[in-house]
C-alpha cells in the first residue's frame, strides 16, 4: 500500500475491486446454498419415497400371502368334498343292501323243515341265555304249532347241555306281519329275549359291518394293523 493518501482514481479502482470481490464471494456462497438445498431436497424426497415404498411392499406381501392361504384352503375343501361324496355313496349302497336283505328274510320262514330246525335252535339258545325255570315263548299266530313242536325238542336239548329243566309255555302273541322267529320272556316277566328273524338281522347288520365293507369294497388300503 502507498504511504501517501490515494487520489480519486485509485480510490475508485480499490472500491471496484472490493465490490467485485464481495460480489464474487456472494455468488459462490449463493451457489453453495443452492447445492445444499438441492441435496436436501433430493434426500428428503428419497426418504419419503422409500418409506412409502416399504409400506406398500409390506401391504402387497400380506395380500399375496392371504391369497396363497385362500388358495390352499380352497384346494383342501375340494378334496374333502370329493372324499365325502364317495363315503356317502358307500353308505347309500350299504343301506340299499340292508333293505334288500330285510325284504328277503320272509323267505326264510317258508321252508318248513329248516324253519322248525331254526326255531328249535333259537329257542335252546334263548333258554341257555335266560337260565330261568319258567319261560313263556311268544310266537306268530301261524307258527304256534311249529313252535310247540320245537319247544319240546328244545327243552330236551337244554337239559342235555346244561342239566337244568325249563317249564315253557307257548303263546301266539306275535303279529303275523313279522318275518318269523320267537321272543322269550322269563317267568317273572322281567327279562325279554328277542330272537325274531328281524332282530337277528338287525344285530347282524351292525356287527358284520367291517366284514361287509371288506367284501363289498375290498380291504382298506390305509389299514396297518390286524390283530
Amino acid at each position: 500500500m502507498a504511504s501517501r493518501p490515494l487520489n480519486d482514481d485509485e480510490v475508485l479502482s480499490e472500491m471496484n475491486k472490493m465490490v467485485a470481490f464481495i460480489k464474487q464471494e456472494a455468488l459462490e456462497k449463493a451457489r453453495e446454498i443452492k447445492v445444499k438445498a438441492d441435496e436436501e431436497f433430493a434426500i428428503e424426497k428419497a426418504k419419503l419415497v422409500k418409506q412409502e415404498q416399504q409400506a406398500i411392499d409390506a401391504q402387497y406381501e400380506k395380500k399375496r400371502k392371504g391369497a396363497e392361504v385362500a388358495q390352499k384352503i380352497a384346494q383342501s375343501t375340494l378334496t374333502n368334498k370329493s372324499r365325502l361324496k364317495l363315503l356317502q355313496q358307500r353308505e347309500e349302497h350299504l343301506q340299499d343292501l340292508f333293505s334288500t336283505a330285510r325284504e328277503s328274510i320272509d323267505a326264510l320262514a317258508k321252508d318248513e323243515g329248516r324253519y322248525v330246525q331254526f326255531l328249535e335252535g333259537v329257542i335252546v339258545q334263548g333258554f341257555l341265555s335266560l337260565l330261568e325255570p319258567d319261560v313263556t315263548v311268544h310266537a306268530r299266530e301261524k307258527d304256534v304249532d311249529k313252535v310247540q313242536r320245537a319247544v319240546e325238542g328244545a327243552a330236551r336239548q337244554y337239559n342235555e347241555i346244561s342239566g337244568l329243566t325249563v317249564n315253557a309255555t307257548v303263546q301266539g302273541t306275535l303279529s303275523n306281519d313279522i318275518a318269523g322267529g320267537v321272543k322269550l320272556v322269563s317267568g317273572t316277566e322281567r327279562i325279554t329275549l328277542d330272537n325274531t328273524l328281524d332282530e337277528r338281522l338287525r344285530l347282524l347288520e351292525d356287527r358284520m359291518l367291517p366284514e361287509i365293507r371288506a367284501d363289498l369294497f375290498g380291504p382298506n388300503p390305509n389299514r396297518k394293523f390286524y390283530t
Partner: protein
Amino acid sequence: MSVLSVLRLKDARSEAAKEIEEYKKSKEAEFKAFEASHTGNTQAVQASIDKETAAKQQEIRAQYEANKDKVVKKLLDRVVLVKPELHRNLNKVEA
C-alpha cells in the same frame, strides 16, 4: 437447521407422492397378475379332482354290483345260523 425453504419442502413432498403412486400402480399390476394365474390354477385343480371323483364313483358302483348278492346271501345265512352253547363260566348240573 434445514436449508430447505417451506416451499421447497412442499415440492419435495408432491414429487415424492407422484413417484410413490407409480410404484403402487406397478405393484398392483403385479398382484393382479398373480391372482389371475391363481384362479386359473384353481379351476384346473377342480376339474382334475372332479374327474378323479367320477372315476372312483364308477369303481365303487361296479364293486357294489358285483358283490352285493354274495353279501346278502351271507347275511341271510347267518341269520338262521345258531349254535346254542352253555355260558363258559357254568358247568353242567349232573343229576
